[in-house]
């Protein structure tokens, strides 16, 4: 994968830059020692690394503004960073950039149950937002699997999803307002503790813009009262097609589960070896979870089980207790870890129309044979958000490249059937060069015009999302 050519003039400015940053920030907020900078050389896409010129860890919106103003005046690119958990390389630096980390912005600024909002600084982790309101019976709905570590800033940048978004939506559906700093240092407020935007929906376009339009320092988030209870049912089928048809029938029946998770045979076996959750050895497995009171759960599960029985399940197991629920979820939740134990893997997240599930799964297994790499599928079936895990050996020369090539083919297939390259991880650097499979030149141009308005000098995370040759003129 290619990164932009490093501007030698920028590198030469390093001494001046550090001095200027130290002028506007406390000493401990500016990191320039080469050994310390290594902590910022990559995010969770660890195959690619590059130490930045410097890293800064401001403690307030005003300090963020001062950093951006300084870099703007000196024409230094800035790469914002939440907790560095991006799987797409969203926080990957370039050698001529400054990493702006929000890790020290962790305060809770306001909780209001009457207005059903929480306002936080964005370095706070996703799970700790729920942690702040949980004891009072509330939660923050988006639940990316990295929620223990990932920051709200990164969730907003990538418009993160999670297992429960079939019912509750993704970040953009739960974000009501932001305080954000533009590249020139201007502080703006978009939205707030109310339910729609004034004028154009700038909040909607900022969410998911991968840190290229501004650095979000504060967020007003919608919180929800916790449901009385939740319980899953597990069902096994002897073909992917039948499992896919069952998903469609459940959705059509008018029950809206909070989650419908799908695992295929390779993943069932890998997780069973690791976690021993007691899954049946079958072609496809669904975990369907519903919420409500005991009586409501019974009512919904009865409807779902009746549908499942029409598809001749090889197993149909309803959880009857918290322990059984935990056991049903155990395999699903350890799927990624279990796969990591048997191989290195690359996790894709293309989304497809649910009706295309069988066709795409067949296509993926053909590609698996063609490339000689194993693939397991574990994903959010209710919304068509695939997660093929391509297994490879990082120590075997050429295997990573082979894996990336195969990944690209899978994503092209997702686009071909009417889907998209990424449903929740973001484009970052990882899928940047595939963008022209989904968008025409004018479609990308229209998106880049938005950045032209927010960041006319293209200094904020400039090497992400769009193919480098497409952005070359704007970046130079």
């Amino acid at each position, binding site marked *: 994968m290619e990164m932009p050519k490093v501007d030698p003039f920028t590198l030469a400015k390093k001494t001046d830059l550090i001095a200027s940053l130290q002028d506007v920030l406390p000493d401990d907020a500016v990191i320039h020692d080469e050994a310390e900078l290594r902590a910022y050389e990559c995010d969770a896409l660890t195959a690619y690394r590059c130490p930045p010129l410097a890293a800064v860890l401001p403690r307030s919106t005003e300090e963020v503004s001062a950093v951006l103003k300084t870099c703007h005046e000196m024409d230094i690119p800035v790469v914002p960073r939440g907790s560095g958990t991006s799987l797409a390389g969203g926080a990957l630096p370039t050698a001529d950039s400054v990493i702006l980390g929000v890790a020290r912005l962790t305060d809770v600024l306001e909780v209001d*149950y*009457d*207005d*059903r909002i929480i306002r936080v600084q964005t370095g706070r982790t996703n799970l700790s937002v729920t942690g702040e309101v949980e004891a009072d019976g*509330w939660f923050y709905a988006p639940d990316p699997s990295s929620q223990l570590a990932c920051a709200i800033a990164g969730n907003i940048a990538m418009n993160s*999803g999670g297992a429960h978004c079939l019912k509750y*939506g993704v970040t*953009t559906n739960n974000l009501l307002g932001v305080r954000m700093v*533009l590249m020139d240092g201007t502080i703006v407020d*978009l939205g*707030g*503790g*109310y*339910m*729609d*935007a004034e*004028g*154009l*929906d700038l909040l*909607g*376009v900022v*969410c*998911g813009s991968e840190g290229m339009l501004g650095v979000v320092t504060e967020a007003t988030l919608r919180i929800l009262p*916790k*449901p*009385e209870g939740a319980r899953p049912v597990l069902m096994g089928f002897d073909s992917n097609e039948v499992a896919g048809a069952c998903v*469609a029938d459940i*959705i*059509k*029946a*008018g029950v*809206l589960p909070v989650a419908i998770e799908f695992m295929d045979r390779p993943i069932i076996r890998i997780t069973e070896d690791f976690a021993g959750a007691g899954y049946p050895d079958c072609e496809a497995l669904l975990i369907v979870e519903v919420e*409500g*009171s005991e*009586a409501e759960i019974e009512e919904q599960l009865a409807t779902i089980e009746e549908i499942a029985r029409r598809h001749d399940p090889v197993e149909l197991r309803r959880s009857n207790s918290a322990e059984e629920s935990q056991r049903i979820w155990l395999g699903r939740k350890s799927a990624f870890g279990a796969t990591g134990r048997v191989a290195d893997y690359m996790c894709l997240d293309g*989304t497809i*129309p*649910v*009706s295309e599930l069988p066709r795409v799964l067949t296509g993926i297994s053909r590609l698996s044979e063609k490339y000689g790499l194993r693939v397991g599928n574990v994903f959010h079936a209710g*919304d*068509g958000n695939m997660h093929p895990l391509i297994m490879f050996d990082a120590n075997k020369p050429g295997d990573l490249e082979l894996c990336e090539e195969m990944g690209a083919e899978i994503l092209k297939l997702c686009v071909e059937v*009417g*889907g*998209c*390259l*990424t*449903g929740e991880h*973001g484009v970052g650097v990882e*899928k940047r060069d595939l*963008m022209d499979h989904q*968008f025409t030149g*004018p*479609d*990308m141009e*229209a*998106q880049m*015009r*938005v950045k032209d*308005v927010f960041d006319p000098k293209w200094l904020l995370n400039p090497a992400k999302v*769009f193919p480098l040759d497409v952005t070359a003129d704007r970046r130079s």
Partner: protein
Amino acid sequence: MLTPGSEAELAELLRGANAPISVRGGGTRHRPSPGEALTTSGLTGITLYEPGALTLVARAGTPAAEVEAVLAAEGQRLPFEPMDHRPLLGTEGTPTIGGAVAMNVSGPRRVQAGACRDSLIGVRFVDGRGEVLKNGGRVMKNVTGYDLVKLMAGSRGTLGVMTEVSFKVLPAASSEATIELSGLDTAAAVKAMSAALGSPFDVSGAAHDPQAGRTLIRVEGLEGSVAYRADRLADLLGRFGDTRRLAGDASRDPWRRIRDAEAVAGAGDIWRISTRPSAAAALAAQAEAEATLFDWGGGLIWLRVPSGTDLKARLGAFDGHATAVRGDGAVAPRTDPVAALEAGLRAKFDPRGLFRPATETA
């Protein structure tokens, strides 16, 4: 009236345009912007509907009622319960689905199922350069590139003319019930609505009509579940006053009227205020309106005031915003950095200034 019959025709028309154009669907919701009228009503038809994938795609000029009828036949619906503006504004014509998107029209179910923009998953539009553009698509989870879908929702025809819109739809509820409280003052009504919306009982509507002295809380879903939650809500809300249970048509009818803001219909200026529920009672008192309606648990306030009232002066600064739906409201142009970003975007998508906004937001 310009009525292009295809996206290509529309694109050609806009490329050749050299004077302002006033975009509309059926013209039922619209405060017309200046310029020659152009309607999307020639661009009609549902182009894709997959009930099993909860996905519907329609051309922008398709009547909203047609979309809703097609969904209803499969037991599904648009989650955001779009308002029909005709009873409120006394307009005539056929509301279109593109018009609902352009205005980000969201009804009482906003509190539970999100706004129109939250259900919108794809758009095609022709910008002011006459270029055909698309963003998003037909899948409900998509973070590929910037989200221009949200940008187009509520853009009121100022960035381009929408030709096709895609939605995530939801199963329609097989049952619903409404809990009614009578005679509450606004402050108590907002507290009751906050208590309901802060309960685990999945409330899908919370509104207060001070004229009728009614506060209404709605639940929807499977029959047994609705009965259970209505019971629990009646218990929870008992401390605010006597509750009454409405079912069937008696539950449905008031929500249609709330959705369409009928309580504030009449001669005068109509305003819409979006704010924090906890600020609603004080704001409404300051407005001294002739008629008021609270939806979204108090987060949305509809007001009718005498024509020409300077409502902004009455309200002063507050957390939220006020929009004149009918009437001028004599609003000074905004000069803050956010307004500069909006102006910058309009200049990029419509460099010749074909789609000038009607001044209406303060």
